[in-house]
């Protein structure tokens, strides 16, 4: 038996922002930006449902649909479009992390929103939560707000997904740091 020193083969970034960032606060008068994608119809349905509540609270809702074509000239177009979208909103809701690469891009875009100082919440399904958290940490922002939806989701029928959206609304607003009194008032 010979004990000697071996060199660590791993590399980790050392910077990390553990803060969740600013709360969404009052929604009235603000623009809530919801990032959609081209794969998950269930996320479109959830986003439509939540958008109604945001509007009831006096917010304006903008949608931006992501493409996974993030390379070449298409990638440049998407990056520019994302930048313009983020510059036009006050609060970011970014989904849907429901596969490996789409979790990667969801967290990527959420980190971009958070880096601009926007109150930002990423949305993951349950099976991709750990991946989302790990990618956020490796992206230097372990404190990123993440709301979790059940998995499987995209395999559900419209009425089942609507029920999920309804059941998760309060939790989502809480994760966003939205002012719940305002929401309750809007509901009355």
């Amino acid at each position: 038996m010979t004990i000697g020193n071996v060199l660590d083969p791993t590399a980790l970034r050392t910077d990390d922002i553990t803060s969740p960032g600013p709360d969404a606060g009052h929604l009235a008068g603000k623009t809530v930006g919801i990032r959609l994608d081209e794969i998950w119809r269930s996320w479109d349905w959830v986003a439509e449902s939540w958008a109604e509540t945001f509007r009831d609270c006096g917010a304006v809702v903008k949608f931006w649909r992501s493409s996974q074509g993030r390379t070449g000239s298409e990638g440049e177009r998407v990056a520019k479009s994302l930048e313009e979208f983020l510059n036009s909103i006050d609060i970011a809701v970014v989904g849907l992390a429901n596969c490996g690469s789409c979790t990667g891009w969801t967290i990527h875009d959420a980190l971009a929103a958070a880096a601009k100082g926007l109150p930002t919440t990423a949305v993951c399904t349950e099976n991709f939560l750990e991946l989302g958290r790990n990618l956020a940490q490796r992206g230097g922002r372990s404190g990123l707000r993440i709301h979790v939806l059940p998995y499987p989701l995209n395999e559900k029928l419209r009425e089942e997904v609507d029920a999920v959206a309804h059941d998760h609304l309060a939790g989502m607003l809480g994760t966003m740091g939205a002012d719940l009194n305002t929401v309750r008032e809007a509901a009355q």
Partner: protein
Amino acid sequence: MKTTETVTASPRPQQAVNLRDCGPEGCDLDWLSSERHPAEIDDVMQFTDFSLQQGWGDGLPVIPPTEGRVRAYLADNNRYPDEVICALPPTNAPCTVEKIAINAVMAGAPPGSLPLIIAALEAMAATDFELFGQNATTAPVVPLTLVNGPVRNRLDIPYRHGCLGGVATIALAIGRAIRLIIRNVAGQVINVTSQSTFGTPGRVAGILFGEWEERSPWAPLAERRGIEGDAVTVFGTMGTMNVLDTTSQTGPEFLEMIGKSLGYPGANGFSPSMPYAEIMVAVNPVWADILHRDLPALQDIQELLWKYSSLDADYLTSKHREQLENLGRVIAGRVYLATEPKDVFVVCCGGTGGLHATGFHSFGTCLAQTRALVPFPQSN
């Protein structure tokens, strides 16, 4: 219990004046900045267990990366250990020459492979390669590394019989070194940062092979992409797909058979989440001669493969067809696996037994990248 180690450095070329490292013996100025861990260094199996506990290993035996071994590896290359080559996602930590050397030592890769490993990593770090998505995805994608130039023979990179697996060669250790770097430096760890559902054997030792340039009727792929001589092309592939044909006799017949075999609905290139894709096809030298005889222009070969690998949109389920229609991907009733004929890469390799081609389906939007190998400096 001993606390010493014996290291034998590889002979260094006489003309090399190495001022960038102190060599295997070290010196007062310690270039190596990695954390040191005490470990068993003579018993490979014990160290392999240790590496798994530490989360460094892939399960196969690993060589302990002692300071002496890493110094010897670096001394043979005359590179500054703290030189940052790239940042690899998802971790995006600095990928230094030192980290590359440590992982290469663990994999058993020869010191002479460092320029190749660096070129491959630089290519993978390109934004358009989209390693970020490849490392996180549920898909079994792995970057293949295709090698061109004389370096194929210097490093025994396989390009003839059994080049995609089975032939005994140290090149496997080079491919494995790249994979360990993706694990330990990029941070791709299954069920932590990668949601890989099934994975692929190629994620252990990579898919590293060369073109049989001496038998190929076409210019080397890297040269076609603008780089002559020693070069690597990385391509994010879903794995290898065999195509058998014992019937065709002419170039167009072979291309129809290969193309139609490549086009199946579950290929990533047909996914609504992948708006565009490339594809690579490896043709054995026997078929390559026939293809070239019947279709002297490579563009004509690419065109036929592109055409035959497309699908009749009605072959898809209505839901899949509708989704692709909404994305504007149904063109005159067909959906194309590769975006354009130029996105079909044809290479020549494999044994002279013929009879088979290999398709490499792309992950999708990751674009192939080619980089030249830069030899280590001879002096400072």
